């Protein structure tokens, strides 16, 4: 329990700092920038209480907001992610795996499964995030292209990080 608390605090801090200190400075083709920090929400254990997920989402989003001066934007998106995570997980995984495995990882699930799992949440996260950031329907198509391309880069980074940091 204490072990877990320590581990996830570390993941939280590393993903926030990595996002605001490094990845926020990345801009490919002048329009693509990854939002990798969402990985924290993806890696939380299956049995995390629903209220805890929502609360952690709020704290995570607010931390990013403080660094990027976008008060409320990331918080709103991450709270939603925390709210829908159990429902989506129920749809894409069986009860047996959820009970036998503690948390979603490539090492315990399959690569394909993890990619689609990350892709679903990154898609929801990016579309809402980019819409909220733009706060207008003007240039809707442009915003969606940005969200889509950035999403691909985010998924790639999230999957690669699994191979680097969570090898067994």
């Amino acid at each position, binding site marked *: 329990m204490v072990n877990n608390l320590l581990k996830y605090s570390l993941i939280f801090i590393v993903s926030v*700092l990595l996002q*605001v*200190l*490094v990845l*926020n*400075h*990345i*801009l490919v083709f*002048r*329009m693509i*920038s990854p939002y990798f920090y969402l990985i924290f929400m993806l890696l939380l254990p299956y049995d995390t*209480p*629903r*209220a805890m997920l*929502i*609360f952690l*989402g*709020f704290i995570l*989003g*607010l931390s990013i*907001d*403080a*660094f*990027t*001066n*976008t*008060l*409320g*934007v990331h*918080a*709103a998106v991450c*709270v*939603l992610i*925390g*709210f829908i995570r159990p429902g989506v997980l129920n749809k894409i995984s069986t009860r047996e795996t959820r009970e036998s495995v503690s948390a979603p990882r490539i090492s315990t699930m399959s690569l394909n499964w993890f990619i689609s799992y990350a892709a679903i949440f990154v898609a929801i996260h990016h579309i809402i995030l980019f819409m*909220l*950031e*733009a*706060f207008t329907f003007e*240039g809707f198509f*442009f915003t969606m292209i940005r969200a889509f391309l950035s999403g691909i880069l985010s998924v790639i980074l999230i999957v690669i990080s699994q191979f680097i940091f969570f090898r067994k």
Partner: protein
Amino acid sequence: MRNLFRLILRYHYIFLFLILEIFSLSMVVTYNNYQQAKFLTSSNGITGYFFENFAGVFQVFDLKKANTELAEENAQLRTALQHYQLRTTNNSHLSYLSERNPLITMTRDSLNKIVYFFTTARVINNSVNQRHNFLTLNKGRIQGVKTNMGVVSTGRVVGMVTDVGDNYCTVISILNERWKLSAKIKRNEFFGSLSWNGRDYRKVQLNEIPYHVPVQNGDTIVTTGFTSSFPEGLEIGIVSEYSLGSGSNFYKIDVDLAVDFRSIVQVALVENRQLKEINKLELLNNDGK
């Protein structure tokens, strides 16, 4: 009552979700019309600490360029200074200098009192990847930074201070859709409003220039001095493309920014010592309405 309690307990996460979501969204809506959120900004101590201590790591790559730029600016200022000394000893008029370097002459008013003061600061965080970009600088209230101070890099416009913490300040970048700046074409003094459309970090848009005005590619765009944060005539960029929108009386002008926003390391803060007087006057005007 008991049933209600049980209901809340059973669906507590839904209530938590609604409360936090509504809270977050209300912040988004509330602060969307402002240039800057009123709390939890990047000028607070914690974010400032991280930016300050880690900014250096990534700025190493830009240092060479920053050095060259500073050296060039130094050389320009030295030249201007020599002209200045020459002219003052010859007791002749200073207008010649205003064409050469706005930094020197435009900072004086008719009584020859210095109006604009420059101090330096280091950029500890900067972004170009969002629609609302901000910079964080390593100077704050203790070092005398105030809101609405202009920020320039080698004499070119970068942004304006919007929030001041004890040791850090947040600067709204020209690359922020919420900030509009008054700007003019240097050659013919026609002015319009400059803003960013959120797309390309190297280009901003100059609007409200009527179609009868002669515009050319390569025209220099400078500040007007209507914004009290900046002296008149500071360079912003160069016209790279212009067109007349169909049925519109105004040009759509793309301006190539003079500052490369991806490699800003050192900036200068511009303080207008007459700001108090200006604000007082403007307040009087508003009361008269």
